[in-house]
């Protein structure tokens, strides 16, 4: 793929990410007549939740479920809207002037927009147990990507471990596709059932109630479940062989070929952080999230965030938040077109409906400390540079007060993943060790490129006299 001829040099709106929030936002601004570009890394639209919605080889729609099919409507509305779509394109930079750095087919470009809507969604929370880097251990999110895009189910002895809606959904999908799961190790802390109970009324009136219980029942009929799990360790020489587990006083082990881990999702903040957008610690969802107004405006003028990247809310609320951001954009750039798009009040009401039951899920699936902050000194935290929890604690002892001095001491977060897989663990571990809040400890200072680009691509973006003067000297 490469940049199409039809691509404009500037846009009214650039939307980054073609999941539910991005599709809805781009469709809405384009319907209002704003010149809109939707950029996405994947070749097909849908994001993670509706991954491969237009291309999935799974013809039997009952495997992935009815909710997955909802992605079709979003894609159709988008396709009719007149927005440009740039697929297979990586966004590697975004600055305060709303210049977006794009990379496509080995070429890089800078394109400016009046408004940028970041809809980069969520990523899985790290799950740093001993042995989580062994071949054979992967995340449920990765497993589901393989299922949706290629119809693949794991072969060999499989167990799932962790908690959260995705775990049960994926388990059901695997079973429906004819797969087998040897066991599920549920790490939901038992105390969470009590704190979540306070939020039960909202949940009972949400669609999650019947859907969620139905899924769990479907899985429990076919799979052995171990609840109240308090410790997990993946063991094996060069690949996964055994999972050793504890659940209070009960212990056991099981031989496995594949172990899939998942303990919820968190906002994917790298691009927004690198742009310099202000973030804050969410003490309930246990993650950083951008500081936004009701429409999704960030601390940088003209840059908005919608969808799970703005705080986890799920696919349906993501689409509504995408529309809300789009309406604000239209109100600012082309107010006379507001009549052509849904009203702010309608979208707000629908958003409120989709958020019902969220508080219950947030409290129920709050992962326990032992699975967020590695207790064993030898557990790897930064996978790229292979830095352990013990080495991080030792760095604190010689003076590292936060992730950035740690990065200088130990290279944590300097690898190709740019800190995606270790940042939350590092912040929480340092906060715990120093007796501070994660907000006080802070996050890595991120810079472009937020995704690697080749040196040739970087060299291909336009140079100017000032830049040349700043570099060349005798």
């Amino acid at each position, binding site marked *: 793929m490469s940049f199409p001829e039809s691509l404009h040099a500037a846009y009214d709106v650039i939307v980054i990410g073609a999941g539910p929030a991005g599709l809805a936002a781009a469709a809405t601004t384009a319907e209002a007549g704003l010149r809109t570009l939707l950029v996405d890394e994947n070749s097909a639209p849908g994001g993670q939740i509706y991954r491969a919605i237009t291309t999935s080889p799974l013809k039997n729609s009952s495997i992935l479920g009815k909710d997955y099919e909802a992605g079709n409507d979003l894609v159709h509305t988008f396709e009719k809207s007149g927005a440009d779509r740039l697929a297979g394109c990586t966004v590697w930079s975004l600055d305060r002037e709303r210049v977006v750095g794009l990379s496509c087919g080995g070429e890089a470009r800078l394109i400016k927009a009046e408004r940028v809507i970041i809809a980069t969604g969520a990523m899985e929370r790290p799950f740093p147990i001993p042995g989580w880097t062994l071949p054979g251990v992967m995340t449920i999110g990765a497993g589901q990507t393989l299922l949706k895009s290629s119809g693949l189910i794991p072969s060999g002895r499989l167990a799932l471990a962790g908690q959260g809606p995705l775990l049960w959904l994926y388990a059901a999908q695997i079973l429906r596709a004819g797969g087998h799961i040897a066991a599920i190790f549920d790490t939901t802390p038992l105390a969470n059932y009590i704190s979540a109970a306070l939020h039960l009324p909202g949940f009972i009136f949400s669609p999650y109630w019947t859907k969620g219980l139905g899924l769990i029942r479907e899985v429990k009929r076919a799979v052995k479940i171990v609840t109240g799990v308090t410790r997990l360790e993946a063991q094996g020489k060069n690949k996964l062989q055994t999972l050793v587990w504890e659940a209070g006083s009960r212990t056991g082990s099981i031989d496995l070929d594949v172990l899939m881990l998942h303990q919820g999702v968190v906002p994917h903040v790298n691009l927004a952080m690198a742009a310099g957008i202000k973030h804050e610690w969410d003490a309930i969802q246990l993650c950083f999230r951008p500081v936004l107004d009701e429409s999704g405006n960030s601390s940088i003028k003209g840059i908005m965030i919608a969808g799970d990247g703005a705080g986890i809310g799920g696919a349906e609320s993501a689409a509504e938040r995408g529309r809300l951001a789009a309406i604000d954009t239209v109100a600012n750039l082309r107010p006379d077109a507001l009549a052509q798009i849904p009203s702010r009040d309608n979208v707000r009401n629908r958003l409120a409906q989709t958020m019902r039951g969220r508080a219950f899920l947030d409290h129920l699936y709050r992962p326990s400390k032992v699975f967020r902050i590695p207790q064993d000194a030898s557990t790897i935290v930064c996978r790229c540079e292979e830095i352990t929890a013990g080495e991080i604690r030792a760095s604190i002892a010689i003076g590292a007060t936060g992730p950035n001095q740690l990065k200088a001491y130990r290279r944590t977060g300097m690898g190709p993943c740019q800190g995606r897989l270790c940042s939350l663990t590092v912040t929480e571990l340092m906060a715990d060790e120093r007796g501070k809040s994660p907000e006080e400890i802070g996050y890595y200072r991120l810079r472009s490129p937020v995704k690697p680009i080749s040196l040739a691509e970087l*060299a291909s973006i336009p140079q100017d006299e000032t830049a040349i003067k*700043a570099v060349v000297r005798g």
Partner: protein
Amino acid sequence: MNHTESTNEYDVAVIGGGLLGSSIAWGLGRLGQRTCVLDEGDVTKRASRANFALVWVQSKGLGLPEYTGWTVRASETWSKLSDEIKAQTGIDVCHQRPGGFHLALSEKELEDRRLSLRRLHNQPGATDYKIEILDHDEVKKQLPHIGPDVVGGTYCPLDGHVNSLRYLRAIHSALKTSGVDYRPEHRVSTIEHRNGEFKISTEQGEIRAGKVVLAAGNANMTLAHMVGLKAPMSPTRGQILVTERTVPFLGFPLTTIRQTDEGTVMIGDSREEFIDDTVQNLPINAVMADRARRMFPLLNQLNIVRTWSGIRVMPKDGFPIYDQSETCPGAFVTCCHSGVTLAPNHAFDIAPMIAKGALDLERVGAFSARRFDQIQVQSSGYY
């Protein structure tokens, strides 16, 4: 000697925990001085985390010949420093001195380089050392991967490099084992000299010390006035690109490209007056990437995994400042651009002078800030 966190009295308080302050504090600790290092927190302007990690001699000293000698001395004592640090902490900071290159991409660039080196060499009082001026073929013998655009370059056998981030961890580890208190999150607001002692207000209370060393980079500009000193600075911003790891292909550091012991390739270095290190100028990154690939076409395929901008600590004329206060005896100011290159001098030369209570003017008198009272000297602190 181990101090508890509650100790707030020291022989010497060093303000600034970067490479310069830490190297001096370590030198003081070796001499048995009760020393603390007062540093800021996790996010602050830290040249020690943003530098290019060269231990560099060629082209330094135009305008102040004593700087050439001071730099050559550092190049010659770096291995002593790395050996001692390794013995104390077990950390190998990977100091190497294979000599270093500067490459030119046009005849004009090569000619400019030749002229500035000649002027440097012709200065009375400059330490003499060897620099070779090479054409394309001569460079290619040592750097087989250069591209056709390289017209030539210069080579100096005294040049080298080090893993400067690892040195930061190593020197902080060494402070700990030497009993020097490294105290982060102790940003200094005021320093008072009363009854022969310095009272230093920090965000975590007052620290008292018999002597104080200002090693706070560009912030020395503000701190120096509090103790009757001055430190005129003119910071600049530089940007650096880093590639993913690759097989070793570059046996020598260059002024603008070096391969680290970990396998990544660092590409520098720009200079701007604009000093916001939270943003970057992308066209500058493009120029640096473009020049780098013309020097080594194989770099084209490598991924850039990180880029950053950092603020250089830069005295107004580019040369180090080492000075002592007449009105507040026991107060010293130390600033320099080359905190990596000069680390051994700070540990082995400057620290003992401070322990004694007076700078040795025979050796470092040329670096007094009094030079700014006289004429404006031309900057040559850059590579």
